[in-house]
Every structure is written in structure tokens, then in C-alpha cells.
């Protein structure tokens, strides 16, 4: 972990934003798609119960929430640091950028809450032995998504956001 942290510290805000988009956002979006496909399949294969439907609904909601959140970061925030060191032309004020970053942090918190609910519903991503392979695969994806999102949030809040606000 330490070697990674040292790596993040040496990266510019622009490099960090590109790294997060490529290594986290894109992969998380793909993993959500795979998890939903497998969960959908398991709903058909297994004897459908309310809990399975609730898990599917929650994952669908988390996927939509993350997609919008990542879209806002990639489309509205990251380009602000595309030319590192330059001040923004005709840009948002410091207050507006800070407020926007605060909103994104609140969304991080909401994502965390959502995954806590998901852990509770899925018994920490543990399946019964009788569960279908689709469900097992889906839970594996979800576990991976949660870990990736945690790391993504850590890098953003500890390294990227402070740099963006400093540049401003």
C-alpha cells in the first residue's frame, strides 16, 4: 500500500484524474454491468424470493448512482485540472468549486451507506452453498466493486480533491 501512496503523491492532479477514470471508474462501471447480468440470471434460475429482488434493486440503484457520480467527476471536475497549473478561464468561482467538491464527498458517503446496506442484505457477500453459480459470481463482482470504490474514494479525497482546490 505504501508504494502506491508514494506513487499517488508524485502524480499531478491531471495524472490522478486520468488514472482514476481509466483504472477505477471504467472498470467499476463494467463490473456493475457484469454483476447485474449475473444477478438477473440468478433471479431466473433460483426460486425467486423478496430478498433476492431487493438485492437486485439495490445494486441497480447503486449502479445508477455511481454512473451519475463518476460522470459528474469526469465531465465536470476532472477537466478543470487538464492543464495543470493554469488558472481557469471564465471559470467557476472558488466557492462554487468547493461546494461542488463537498457535494461529491456527500455522494461518496451515500455510496458507502449503500454498500453497507448491500453487505447486510448479502450477509457480507456470502452465499448459501445451494446458491446458483450466477449468484456466487455476482457476489464476487460486488465485493470487488466495493473494494475498488473504497480505493477510488480514498485517492480522490486524500490526493485529488485537495490538489484541485489548491490549483484553484
Amino acid at each position: 500500500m505504501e508504494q502506491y501512496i508514494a506513487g499517488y503523491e508524485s502524480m499531478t492532479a491531471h495524472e490522478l484524474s486520468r488514472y482514476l477514470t481509466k483504472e477505477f471508474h471504467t472498470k467499476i462501471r463494467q463490473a456493475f454491468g457484469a454483476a447485474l447480468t449475473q444477478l438477473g440470471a440468478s433471479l431466473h434460475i433460483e426460486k425467486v424470493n423478496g430478498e433476492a429482488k431487493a438485492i437486485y434493486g439495490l445494486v441497480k440503484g447503486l449502479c445508477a448512482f455511481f454512473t451519475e457520480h463518476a460522470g459528474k467527476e469526469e465531465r465536470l471536475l476532472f477537466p478543470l485540472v487538464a492543464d495543470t497549473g493554469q488558472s481557469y478561464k471564465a471559470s467557476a468561482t472558488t466557492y462554487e468549486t468547493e461546494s461542488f467538491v463537498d457535494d461529491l464527498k456527500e455522494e461518496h458517503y451515500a455510496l458507502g451507506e449503500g454498500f453497507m446496506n448491500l453487505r447486510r442484505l448479502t450477509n457480507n457477500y456470502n452465499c448459501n452453498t445451494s446458491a446458483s453459480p450466477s449468484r456466487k459470481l455476482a457476489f464476487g463482482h460486488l465485493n470487488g466493486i466495493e473494494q475498488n470504490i473504497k480505493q477510488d474514494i480514498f485517492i480522490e479525497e486524500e490526493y485529488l480533491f485537495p490538489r484541485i482546490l489548491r490549483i484553484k
Partner: protein
Amino acid sequence: MKPFLLATDYSEAARNAGDFAAHLAQSCGSELIVFHAWTPTLPAPETSPIVPLDDVRRIQKEAVEAEAARLSKAFQVRTRAIEQSGFAGDEIEVVCEEEGIGLIILATSHHNVVARFFGSVATSMLHKLKFPMLLVPEFVTFKEPQKVLLATDLHDSGDWHELDTLKAIARQLNFSIHIINVVNEKQVAGVEESSAGVRLENKLREIEHTWHFPVDEDIPHAVLETAERIGAGWIAMVPHQLPWYKELFHKSITKQLAFVTHRPLLALPNA
């Protein structure tokens, strides 16, 4: 809210737009000004006018007053009637300035092929108007929207003041705003667009809103598809004011949408 202005030509589509406008004005607690522009017929030099101009004016006045009275009675809304001789597009603008209009409501007809080619009053006004304008497709009846889809390319260097009307109506009707920014796969967002997006976030802070970033080469298609998917009641756009020569090469997205959408289209000029 500021008064609304219904521009009518008494056609079936315009009467439907009138019902829509009256219902909306009632929901927003606004006065509705019913307006009709008419063009005096110029007689040939050797003939005398069949109907004197004063009589024409009286007939026009009675007609617009009758429409205002109909809407007032049917929807329990304060109405006022104004008629003016001249070209509709010009006269609407004059009345809007005189009366401090907050929103113009006009009918659009998808079946009018001639208008589609040459442009109707509504679509010709889209790119020169200084006032917000709601285009109501024929046969669309009023229903309070739960969601309004705001399409933007984030090309705004100002403070998004053009959204003030949308915000005011959102507060009255309590709808949420879904912002759509269609992304081209090869397109890289610039600093200007991002800044505009951050400012837009702040502008809509107290209104429930959400973002969509679909990847699509065809902007009208992406807007219509998203509107359908989320069940948007209206579509809102900020039309760009292009120089006339650019209009030859760049098809206006707002105009394209105005002709094909079956949802009311709110055009918010940034003049």
C-alpha cells in the same frame, strides 16, 4: 410569477395550447395574456376595402377577448386580451417587453410540412427571442410534469440566468430537473464546459436535480431517448443564437427537437 403570454391564431393546435397555457398559469398563479397578431389586408389601388380597417380591428378584438373569456371561465385564471396588427414574431416581442412577460406559450404542429421546411412562427422565433418560450405540440394536454429534461452542451460563459424561469416554474410545480449532456465518444471535455457544469450545479442547488451523460453521435436521438426512458414531462433547452450564415451548415438541435418531440419544449434564451 410574471404574466404568461399565449400567442394564438385560433387554430385547433392553438386552442389546445390555450387550454395548456391557462392550466399552467393557474398552477403557477400567473396572469395569462391572450395575444393575437393580425395582418391587415392591403387592397389593390383600384378596389376599395370590403371591410373597413376599424371594423377589422373590432372583429379581431372581439375574437381575442372571446378566447380570453373562454379560458378564464374554463380554468379560473386571470386573463387579459391584446390584439395587434403586424407580423406575429415582431409583435409578440413588443408586447412581451411592454408587459414584462415571463413565458410565451405557442402551439407547434408536426403535420405542417410547409412550416417544417420554411419554419413556423414558433420555430422562427426560437433563435431570436429574448423571452422564455414553451412550445406545445398539438394534442398534448396539460399534466403537471414530475421531471423536466434540461438538455445542455455546457456552452455557457455566464451565470445561467436563463434558467431562472425554469427554476421558478420548478418551485411552483415541484418537479425535478434531469440535466442531459450528450457526450461524443471522441470528445474531450474542456475547462470552459466543466466550469459551466460546476456553475450549473450551484445554480440548481436548491432544486432536486440529477445528471445524465449518454454517449451518442446523434444529439436529438439521445435527448428523445432519455426523455422517454425517464418519463420526462417536458424538455428544456437553451437555443444558441447562430449567425445566419452558420445556420446554413449547422442544423439547430432545438429546431430539430421542436419538430419531432411530442413533449412540450421549453426554450430558454440566454439573451
